[in-house]
Structures are given as structure tokens and as C-alpha cells.
């Protein structure tokens, strides 16, 4: 998995420029997220990409030609912290199973954010790997609904991506 972070001007159509290029050049992205940053008028797009080094290099080079993109770089997983949020609604009508689920949530350091008599909604934050592992466990209980944010990432240490 390759993580690419881009600082872009916050104006209409920028996300379109980015996704249009990704589609046109035939790149495969797994996730893409966008949100505000510490600077007004600047948004941050984080995406994860599959492919070898040359594919990622080409994607970064092509994207950096978009005038709305002020800065773009690959964040190496070893030199950065990255997290994803997943919300998982799990079927839990049976009290015994419900307590199993609650145990797993504790082990994975998740939280229950909504409950009904037949279900639990769980918030899970972590690396995609951790979330996948948790989802594997939940499959046995029956996942009713799942929403994932895709990852956001920052480089480790005091330096910022915009420097």
C-alpha cells in the first residue's frame, strides 16, 4: 500500500480534477479522502494506491502537474502515522453473543456508539490492517452495515508535509 498526500487549493472542482486524472490514466486507488487543514483555503487529499514504485511515481508526477495541487508527496508507512475510522453495525440479538462482541471491542480498543435490542454499532479507529482483522471477527456475528473513511496520514516527527 502506498499513501499519497496532497495539499490542494480549497476551491470547487479540485477533487474532480484529481479523480479525473486518476481515472484517465488508469491508476487504481483504494481510498481517497479530503478535508480541511491548519491553513485556511488549503485542503488535504489523502489517497492509497496499489501498484509498484514506478506506478506511484508516475501518479505523483502526473498529479503534481495539476495547478490546484500545491504540494504532493508519498508518505512511507514506516515514516508516518496513519489511521482509518470504520463504523460497523453488527447483528446482536443473542445476549451471549453480544457479550462476545463486547469483549472483542475491548481487545481491539473500539467503542460502542449506538445500540438497539438487536444490534450494536461500533466505532473502530486504526490501521486498515487492524480494522480488517476486526471485521473478520465480526463476520461471524453478521455485519449489517459498514462504513469506512479511508485513511488519513501525517509524517512522523515535527516536520509538516507542506514544508
Amino acid at each position, binding site marked *: 500500500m502506498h499513501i499519497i498526500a496532497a495539499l490542494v487549493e480549497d476551491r470547487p*472542482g479540485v477533487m474532480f480534477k484529481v479523480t479525473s486524472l486518476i481515472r484517465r490514466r488508469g491508476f487504481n486507488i483504494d481510498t481517497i479522502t479530503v478535508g480541511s487543514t491548519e491553513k485556511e483555503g488549503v485542503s488535504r487529499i489523502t489517497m492509497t494506491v496499489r501498484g509498484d514504485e514506478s506506478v506511484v*511515481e*508516475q501518479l505523483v508526477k502526473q498529479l*503534481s502537474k*495539476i*495547478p*490546484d495541487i500545491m504540494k504532493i508527496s508519498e508518505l512511507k508507512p514506516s515514516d508516518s502515522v496513519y489511521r482509518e475510522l470504520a463504523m460497523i453495525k453488527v447483528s446482536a440479538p443473542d445476549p451471549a453473543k453480544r457479550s462476545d462482541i463486547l469483549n472483542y471491542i475491548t481487545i481491539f480498543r473500539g467503542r460502542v456508539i449506538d445500540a438497539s435490542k438487536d444490534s450494536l454499532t461500533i466505532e473502530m479507529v486504526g490501521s486498515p490492517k487492524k480494522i480488517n482483522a476486526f471485521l473478520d471477527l465480526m463476520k461471524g456475528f453478521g455485519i449489517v452495515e459498514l462504513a469506512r473513511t479511508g485513511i488519513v496520514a501525517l509524517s512522523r516527527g515535527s516536520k509538516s508535509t507542506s514544508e
Partner: protein
Amino acid sequence: MKLSGAKAIVEALKREKVEVIFGIPGGSTIPFYDALYESDIRHVLARHEQCAAHMADGYARVKGVPGVCTATSGPGATNLVTGIAVAYMDSSPIIAITGQVPRSMIGKDAFQEADIVGITTPITKYAFQVTSASQIPDAIRTAFLLASTNRKGPVLVDVPKDVQLEEVDLDYPEKMMIKGYVVRSGDPHPYSIKKALGLIMSSERPLIIAGGGVIASNASEELIKFAELIMAPVATTLMGKGSIPENHLLSLGMVGMHGRGEANKAVEETDLIIAVGMRFGDRTTGKLDEFARNSKIIHIDIDPAEIGKNIRVDVPIVADAKKALSVLNSKLIEVGSKRTESEWIKRINSLKELFASNYAEKGDGLKPSRLMKILRDCIPAKSIITTGVGQNQMWAALHFKALEPRTFITSGGLGAMGFGLPAAIGAKVASPDRPVFNIDGDGSFLMTEQDLATAVSEGLPVVSIILKNRVLGMVRQWQCLFCNRRYAHTDLGNVPDFVKLTEAYGAEGVKIESYESFESAVKKSLKAEMPVVMEVPISPDEKVLPMVPPGKGLKEVIWYG
């Protein structure tokens, strides 16, 4: 001083030294045209917006400055699309200004509304909408800056009609900063120059491949000097034609699918390719795995994304072609590496001799190769050639020797039929004193033939040479070679009499029946004051040869059809 958004656009264009705009007015550009009416900017009224874009493109390629075209919202804008895509693929700086429905109507599927920014985003360097008149000065400055710097290309500015009517102060920025866009100095990195020199000095069989980037950066002089310093033959891509005079001893002509035998053979035998301002497109390389297998590669290009995109490179030089070559030249002079006759040059010369007989004309009828030679001999070196797309284009590329940069104007990357005539019109507007010839096919010419009306109205004596074979010849050639002669829908059937057609437009038509009548018609056309169309009959079985079949390596060439 307050003025309307429309007037602000015109004022901004004047600040950018725009002399001419190619376009067609429509509902959403009425305010813009009203402002244009009282300006001294020339307007060339096209008959189809596609042609307006090709005209701006032809103008830009000849003059080396951005060409401007305009169209109204909806169909006007969508008609520009092919022309914009041509400019994008060939890195030609054009600015397209489109009208848009008023802001309050956007997204409501209003009459003549089309999302032209969305449509053209993948085929422009940048496309954007101006959402208030106050943005107009910056928008026009941005458009020209983006179009004409680094790797050049088309920019589209979409202006809603009510923005054209809104009032604004014209505060035109002299300098423009775009946060995500750095105008490159174009200077090569000393380290890569050093590495390149090492490879060049140790190479025994260096080969230069020059592309459109050499022409875009006006680097011909430096290229020729470089070639002479290292005694390397120069092959060109289609877009690079004219970067070195093709009668120069070191010129090999075009390389690639329809490249000349000697050029393709040189690629096979070289030990070092110095690629300048070219992108290793599939029509140039053939099967990539088999391209220049025994060779190292130095790649000079202004666009870092081109390095390593299609092919592995030993030494990348991200730089302007002119700057990189002149640094290399001065370093070479410093070390005193003036080479003289080498075994390699002898080999190249023998290859030229070896293949010369393969181009011999066989069979009856007028031969395109001979026609191209006659044309070259009859017209001044500075004459401008434009082409259609297909066999006509490849015959011109193979057999017409371009002698100066910016004299061979063709739709290389996109390969858009119909490019020839409107590009010739744009070229003639850019350079009224030079003869302009459009070498075209009947299929290609018929795609934009209506703009003969533009040439006549504007009094532009462009000359079209239509190689009339009554078929869509290039596709038919593939059908012959690769589809067992199953000629599916490539026979044009009823092809008009181009002499009569031309006369109906008020231009001059000439039927050519022999080489002699062609020669005299070409000579006469140099003095024409009206557009001229020559109809030259060609056999439908005439092929463009040599040819490397698609997906094959350059050595798997077909010489005889």
C-alpha cells in the same frame, strides 16, 4: 475605471498582445463579441468551432505564441473539443474562451448548457470557470501563463454570460503566482549533464531522436550544432519534422511505424539514443520491449512526468531542449570533442544508399512520393505544410523534406482528420507572406471542407492538395494487410468533384492529371490571391510503405504491400 466583464476580457487579451481570435459567436458570447466589435483585435469567423480551434492551433505552431479561439456555450463549446484535444496531444498553446449560461442557470440543464470545464479537463492543461467578473484579469493572465510555459498546452476559460455583463475594475496583473505551478527555469541539472556527457563520449554509435519539444523551444540551431559536434545522425518523430533540415547530411528523416528504413535501422544499431523533446509514443517506438535493445538512453524533456513514463531511461535531463543542448554543446567544445568521419556515419550513409531503391516508384498512376518531391522542389524553404490525417499525412512525412522548424504542421498525437485546411488557415493568418500548403486526403478534407468559406471570406490564399483515392486509405491499407482484404466501409462511394466544389465556394479548383500539370499548378499557386484546391487522383491501392505492423518491433518492417 469600471468596465464590463466582456470588455475586461478584451482588454486583458490586448495586454497579452493577442492580434487575432478565431471563433463563432453565439447566445452566451454576445456581450464578449460586442466588446470585441470595437477593439482592434482581428476576428476570423470560422464555419465550425472545431476549425476555429485548429486555426488557433495552426497559428500558435507557426508563430510560437498562444492562439486564441472562442465559442458559445453548449454546442459551440463541445464543437471545440476535437481541436482542443489535438492541441493537448501535441502540446500546442491555445486558449479557448467559451461562453456559459448565466450563473443562476448553471446546473439546471438550461438551453445550450454543457459542462465544458468537466468535458475538457482531461484534454487541457487546465480548464476553469470564472465565477465573477473580478476574477477575469487573473483568469486571463493565468490562462496565458499556463498555456505558454513549461510543457505548453491548451487552456480553457469558461465565462458565464452574466459575468460578461457584470462590472469590474481592470487591474491587470503583470506577474502572476499560481500556488501549485512553478514556471521552470528549464536549466539542466549539472549532475545529469555530467552523466550524459560521459555516455556521449564513450558512445560509438550515438543517435539523436528529436521531437516536437525541439521545435517548441526553438532549439533547432542548438540541435544541429549538437549533432555535428558528436557526429550523430538525427531521426525525428512526426512532431519533430523540421527540427533539422531534412537535406542535412546527418538527417535520417522520420522514425517509427511509418519511419524511413534508415532511421528505424539506426535505432536497432545505435548504442546511445539521445532523445530530445519527445515522449516515446507508440507510433515512434513500435513494440517497446524491442525498442533500441542494445542502447542506452538519455532523455531530455521539460516535463518530468515524461521521464520513465513509457521507457526506462539511463540519464534523465529535465530541462528545456534549447538550454540543455546549449549546455551540452559548450561542454563538448570545452573538452574539444569535435568528431570527424566515423565508422558509424559510414554505416548510416550506406544504410541510406541501401534503402534508397526501396522507395522507388512502381506501377502506373501518380505516386505520392514523386508528388512530394516535386512540391518540395517548387516551393521556397520557408513554405508551411499542413496535413490531414492518414495516408496523405504519412506520405508527406516520409517524402516531403521539411527544411525549417515550424514549417510542418500536423496532428501528431491525436491524429484528427480534418486538421489540414483549418490549420493552414491559421498558419496563413500567422504568416501571410509565406506560402501555405495543405496536403490532404479526400476523406480528411471532407471533414472540415466548409471552412473553405472562411478562407475565401478572409482572402487567405491557402493551397490544398487533395490526394483523391476515393477511399479512407489508411484504414483500407490495414484492411488489406491485416484483414485479408476485407474492405469494410472504407470506400467513400460518391466523392465530390473538388474542382466544382471549390468553385462553388468562390475559390479556384485545379484538376491534376500528370506530374507536369502538378508542377505548373504548384508554381502558379504561389502567386494565387484566393484559396486553391488541387484534385490529384491516386490509386486506392497505393500504400504507405515502409510500415511496421502495430505492436511489432521496428525491425519487422513491411516494404512491399
